[in-house]
């Protein structure tokens, strides 16, 4: 009996769906033609600790941003003051109680990947950890203006600040996404990096953790039914490839779908254009490249004496004016970098406030050096003063291709002026140690800036002069410090203060500000809606989808 019934039952099971599909309008049918989708993103560093409070940069942050949502997201305008530039994410809405108190109401639909709801205590626990220097590390200084964080019920978080300032909202929502208190609270802060939570994070974002192979890859999968919508790409792999050439080869061969930061030289961009299946996506970045002048004499162990050459502002200005920065930057970055007029990356909204720098003028540079007493008295082509030749050591980290390439151009452009630059290409850790010790004349540094211009305090304030990894050139102008403080904490429009501070920095010439590049991403053309964000490049990955006509076999694989 069963043998005769089975085909009939089977036919009935097939007929019904077939009839439904036949009755569907063509548009609906097209809408059904989606594929699960996959993306292999090639990164240069291992996302070792993709957890808030443990990371602020690089691949770890890229992965962390897929796993953890912020209370609110920064909009495309990158406006960090007030709250008008932000959109809801974990917080459904927010309000201000007074000039120092913000109230956030969490979205009740938000869940951790283990199924527990996101509650106010998660926010309180995370921010409390991050605010304490012993447990929050470098986040503590970023959140130092937060006086108190407390929960009012399960869904409401109240953040109180020490004083009124323009970036209260930004500080509360941007730096540290909440972590699950029920998992994190039992882990001592010093053990978090080595904990199971750091190895297999449980977040609340559109992707959940699947696995990692240390040094090789991290795999995530989309959370189906996520309260912000299910991501269009279900499998996401961050593939770790330390070597830049290997990264590019992997991308060009089709084994990778996207790559962050296609490195100069520009020939690499030409290879991507020529490949046909890839497109370049330039995105404003927080990177700033500059040659720092040491204001202190490296021969003085106490670094109390001014630098015998660069302590004179006329010499510093002469070096700035002699260089054709535009030409150097175009040669290395092509169209994808701006020449900054001050210590401002493309992420900072104040970048347009800096006055335009004086044009390249080697004659003016010569005059300035002559005024400072530098002349070629022995006819060897190098200027000298009181028997000391104008020779400067320029420290360059070997791993940075742009800096290596530009350093040689700087050397060539300053040679006709009678300035001898000895380029010292150093292994990364050696370079860093020397700069932190203040053992350099010129240092080719690069900073990665937050969207907030308040970060200017880190590298250009008297308070941080001589501090390792901060103001290692010991530049100090109390007037600049005052102007920056006014810009940060005044209740009115901060722009005039920023404008004046930037003009003052430009006049002081503490560095040669060389490039503020865009990060150039390479992305396969098979993706639809493939947008990237300046503040967090891959944060919109959940909106991407694969063009069904260009799907690969790997796109159809689901777990």
């Amino acid at each position, binding site marked *: 009996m069963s043998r005769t019934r089975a085909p009939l039952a089977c036919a009935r099971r097939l007929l019904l769906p077939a009839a439904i599909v036949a009755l569907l309008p063509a548009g609906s049918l097209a809408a059904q033609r989606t594929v699960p989708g996959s993306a292999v993103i090639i990164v240069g560093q291992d996302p070792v600790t993709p957890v808030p409070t443990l990371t602020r940069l690089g691949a770890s942050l890229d992965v962390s941003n897929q796993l953890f949502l912020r209370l609110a997201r920064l909009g495309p305008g990158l406006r960090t003051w007030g709250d008008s530039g932000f959109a809801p994410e974990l917080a459904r809405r927010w309000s201000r109680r007074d000039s120092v108190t913000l109230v956030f109401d969490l979205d009740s639909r938000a869940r951790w990947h283990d199924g527990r709801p996101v509650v106010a205590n998660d926010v309180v626990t995370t921010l409390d950890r991050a605010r304490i220097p*012993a447990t929050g590390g470098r986040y503590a200084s970023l959140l130092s203006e937060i006086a108190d964080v407390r929960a009012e019920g399960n869904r409401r978080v109240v953040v109180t600040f020490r004083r009124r300032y323009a970036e209260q909202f930004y500080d509360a929502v941007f730096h540290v996404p909440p972590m699950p208190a029920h998992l994190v609270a039992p882990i001592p802060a010093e053990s978090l990096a080595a904990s199971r939570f750091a190895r297999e994070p449980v977040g609340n974002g559109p992707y959940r953790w699947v696995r990692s192979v240390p040094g090789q890859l991290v795999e995530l999968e989309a959370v189906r039914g996520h309260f912000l919508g299910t991501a269009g790409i279900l499998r996401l792999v961050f593939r770790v490839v330390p070597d830049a050439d290997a990264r590019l080869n992997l991308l060009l*061969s089709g084994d990778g779908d996207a790559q962050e930061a296609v490195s100069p030289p520009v020939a690499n961009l030409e290879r991507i254009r020529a490949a046909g299946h890839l497109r370049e996506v330039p995105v404003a970045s927080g990177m700033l490249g500059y040659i720092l002048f040491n204001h202190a004499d490296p021969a003085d162990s106490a670094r109390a004496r001014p630098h015998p050459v660069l302590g004179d502002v006329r010499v510093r200005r002469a070096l700035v004016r002699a260089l054709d920065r535009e030409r150097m930057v175009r040669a290395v970055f092509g169209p994808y970098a701006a020449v900054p007029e001050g210590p401002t990356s493309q992420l900072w909204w104040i970048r347009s406030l800096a006055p335009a720098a004086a044009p390249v003028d080697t004659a003016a540079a010569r005059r300035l050096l002559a005024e400072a007493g530098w002349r070629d008295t022995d006819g060897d082509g190098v200027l000298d003063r009181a028997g000391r030749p104008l020779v400067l050591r320029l420290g360059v980290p070997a791993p940075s291709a742009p800096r290596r390439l530009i350093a040689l151009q700087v050397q060539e452009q300053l040679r006709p002026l009678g300035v001898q630059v000895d380029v010292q290409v150093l292994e990364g850790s050696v370079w860093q140690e020397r700069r932190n010790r203040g053992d350099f004349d010129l240092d080719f540094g690069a*900073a990665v800036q937050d969207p907030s211009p308040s970060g200017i305090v880190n590298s250009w304030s008297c308070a941080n002069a001589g501090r390792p990894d901060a103001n290692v050139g010991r530049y100090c102008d109390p007037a600049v410090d005052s102007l920056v403080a006014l810009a940060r904490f005044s209740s009115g429009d901060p722009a005039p203060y920023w404008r004046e501070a930037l003009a003052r920095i430009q006049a002081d010439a503490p560095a040669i500000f060389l490039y503020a590049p865009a990060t150039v991403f390479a992305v396969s053309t098979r993706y639809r809606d493939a947008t990237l964000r300046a503040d967090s490049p891959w944060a919109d990955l959940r909106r991407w989808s694969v063009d069904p006509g260009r799907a690969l076999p790997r796109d159809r694989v689901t777990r």
Partner: protein
Amino acid sequence: MAGRLLQGLLTVALAAVLAFVLMRLAPGDPLAVLGDDRPLTAEARAQLEARFGLDRPLGAQFASWAGGVARGDLGVSIATGQPVTRLLLDRLPASLLLGGVVLVLTFGLGIPLGVLQATRPGSAADRLLGGLSLAAWAVPSFWLGLVLAGTFAVRWRLLPAAGMTDPLLDPGAPWAVRAADVLRHLVLPALTLTVVSIAAVMRYQRAAMLAALAQPSVLAARARGLPGPAVIWRHAWRNAIGPVVALLGLWLPLLVTGAVFVEYVFDWPGLGQLAALAVAARDYPVVMGVTLLVAAATVAGNVAADVLHAAADPRLRP
């Protein structure tokens, strides 16, 4: 044998002491890699130094490390916070696979080709093979790797450009599928290393074989009317194997260290790549772990070479 073992242990210990001292003398700050874009506070730095024992005198640091080694604990990576033993064990299979395949190919092809050259000295084949091997020896491995990747992976898309496995391959896929995937990824790095290594084996073998073929015993064998292959392989080659076996002993550490440049170019997740990253980051515990492993492999290689040599040449047996 006990003497050899003691000698080996002393060699490994000496290598460890040298590596420890030299790494500490080299400039560089292992905690620098932990600094994001913001400076480490003095408090955080002090905590990290205490955690990794960097605040203790050098002698105490070495004693602590050596004590750990005796217990089988190689410490924790400063850069990643992971146990060094785990890092080494994670990377060892990849290095053994690449090194093993290259070793087999290099000696498996190099020896017959060297013998072929020696048996036809001055012929077109000898000159051609000699020229090719010399050219291959002169080519930098990273350059050859980039050319091969550019040709076979990027242009023709026949083979993977980098890595050891396809990251999107289902981990639950059948064994044969996963093995085939690894083999596809192995072709280009193994080919690169074999091409640049084979010349040495060929040239050593050719020179040794030429000397062996001129020995009276071989002439006598020929005079007795023995067939050519028997004369070459049974009488001449056994006398010519010594230098190649010695070379094999030196080559055995390659099994664990891999080749740094090739591992970089092809993103092969082996110990060479790990060592290079650790040195750049001044990750002392990882560098020490790799050094220990390489020193042990070198000692083992030398012992293995002696044993093989003795097996091949009865005159060396005790």
